[in-house]
């Protein structure tokens, strides 16, 4: 897959042909028998202050991409340029020094907080590691961060299990903000929350972005939430990006058959429209990422490929092309 676009000068993050393969070991002597191609040639860039939504169904490699962007996984191939510095190949020590610039908000707010540490300790720990603040300054900073995410300062000595899911996610956000990062990868930050709390957290994230000038990579499978927060959206399927477009264009005129199918799954609030709406129902299961189909990875389920029976779909991986200004798609047939 060729590179996404000409790197704009203001790009904070540029991911180029990122590949993450997890080896499979099997047999008596545990030899390597193959790879799970969790992420297989993904390229995109995020401009400073922008929110890129990354959507796709479970197991398509969204979270793996997000983690690789922060080098929580070592990429098999490709580059992750953070301000023109390739962090995919940085030595561990230099990488650690970069960590304050990029943080992550995790999906499960219960599991991602150390159960034996108090809220204050969780938030203050990165300050201890990366700054030379005194204990008093740290305490002030923690209190300030709690204010920022809308939690009471009295919570400082409590443990994570004493909080509700929404509150815990706020703790996770305060922790991510502690070192004033530029980039925050939000790995399905609302998926584990009640619907009533989801909006609160998303609004908090938006609010923080405006105030602090944050850049988000927002990973989600909730299209309506992505629509709410993202500036541009990338759609992933089986380790590859299918379509990348500004939010308005993607939702108004999706070009890739997979995007069309995904969007048609979002219910419409009006029952009259909903009753007559034509849905694209995909048949079959997602193929195994250890053994992806030849040609286009989506060809086994693609309604368009089935209808036209185009040979290219089943033999040649599609080109990454700009079908309209700023709208990119990986499909032979999309128009």
């Amino acid at each position: 897959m060729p590179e996404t676009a000409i790197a704009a000068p203001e790009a904070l993050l540029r991911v180029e042909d990122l590949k993450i393969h997890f080896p499979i070991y099997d047999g008596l002597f545990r030899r390597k028998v193959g790879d799970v191609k969790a992420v297989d040639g993904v390229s995109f860039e995020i401009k400073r202050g922008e929110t890129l939504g990354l959507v796709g169904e479970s197991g398509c490699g969204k979270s793996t991409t997000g983690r690789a962007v922060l080098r929580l996984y070592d990429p098999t191939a490709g580059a992750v340029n953070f301000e023109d510095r390739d962090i995919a190949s940085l030595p561990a020590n230099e990488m650690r020094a970069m960590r304050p610039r990029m943080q992550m908000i995790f999906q499960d707010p219960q599991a991602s907080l150390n159960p034996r540490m108090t809220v204050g300790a969780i938030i203050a720990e990165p300050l201890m590691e990366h700054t030379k603040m005194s204990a008093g300054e740290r305490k002030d900073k923690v209190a300030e961060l709690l204010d920022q995410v809308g939690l009471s300062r009295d919570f400082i000595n409590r443990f994570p299990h004493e909080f509700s899911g929404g509150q815990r996610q706020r703790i996770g956000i305060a922790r991510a903000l502690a070192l004033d990062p530029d980039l925050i990868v939000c790995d399905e930050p609302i998926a584990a929350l009640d619907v009533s709390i989801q909006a609160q957290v998303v609004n908090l994230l938006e609010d923080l972005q405006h105030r602090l000038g944050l850049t988000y990579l927002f990973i989600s499978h909730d299209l309506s939430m992505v629509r709410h927060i993202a500036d541009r959206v990338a759609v992933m399927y089986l380790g590859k990006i299918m379509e990348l477009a500004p939010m308005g264009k993607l939702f108004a005129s999706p070009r890739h058959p997979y995007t069309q199918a995904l969007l048609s799954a979002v219910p419409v609030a009006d029952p009259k429209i909903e009753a007559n709406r034509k849905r694209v129902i995909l048949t079959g299961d997602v193929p195994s990422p250890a053994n992806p189909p030849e040609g286009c990875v989506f060809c086994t389920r693609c309604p368009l490929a089935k209808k036209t029976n185009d040979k290219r779909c089943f033999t040649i991986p599609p080109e990454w092309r700009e079908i309209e200004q700023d709208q990119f798609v990986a499909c032979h047939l999309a128009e």
Partner: protein
Amino acid sequence: MLIFTIRRLLLAIPTLLFISFIIFLVVTLAPSDPTANLPLTIPPEVKQKIRESLGLGQPLPVRYFKWLWQFVYIEPAHYLNQAFGFSIDTGQRILSWQTRSPVMDIISQRMPQTLWVVGTSYVVAILIAVPIGVISAYKQYSWFDQIGTFISMIGFSVPTFFTGVLLIVIFSVHLGWFPSIYDTTHSVTDWDSFVVQVKQMIMPTFVLALANAAQLSRFMRASMLDNLSQDYVRTARAKGLQEKTVLLVHVLRNSMIPVITVIALGIPNIFGSAIITEQVFKVNGIGQLLIIAIQGGDVPTVQTITFIFAILIVLFNLLADILYGVFDPRIRYD
């Protein structure tokens, strides 16, 4: 926490009473005869008289309550009299049928030996097991892990009476490095006698430590593996902490919670499991006392030692629960 502890201690009383009764029944109803070891030339009538003088002629409930009274009132009262100069009126203390001396005195004479050997071995076991478990889990399926697993399997499956004798054959008989018999009369007064003490402790300590460390290191490894894959570890890495901090502060602290419980629960067990090792190395400890008492049909001694084990088990169970609450903030006993 205090109320929880008190409630548990109160609940322990009926439990222990029940245990003491079961122990009494098992020991008393066993077909052993305290006079069986006496010379055959003693006529049966005299043997019968000896049995009656030991209290064996009385009905079972009377014997049980007598012993219970001796254990819960006379022995503590006697101790108080000795320690603080009280003059509480006491009766006959629990006497060993074999030596005719108070069982508690024999136990307190023997306790230091057991505590030295067994206690040291347990500490050594923990010191070996925790690092092995941590490294094995961190480098899962590495050579270190495979070797650690293999040694653990050996420690698990080879009984102490075999490893003990094996060590004696190698290090005492062939190499002559360490004495095969533990000299309990040896007293440490200067450096040389300290070296002798260490030398004679090495083999029994190692045998027991191997058995205990095998089990503990497996627990440690499993617990570390549980925690290493948790999300909060990824959070810690994302914070940009050093790998050492991630492992030792975040993962190890959380992993120690179940392991500490296992360690606490294992402490009363080591007294029991040391019986065989004490026998192999001729350590004059509690375990050996118990074996001799069983062989001699010495009911008061067997009963008292076994009941003390039972008390230790109940107490350390409680301690394990309390420690769990102390170390895991998610557990509250209110």
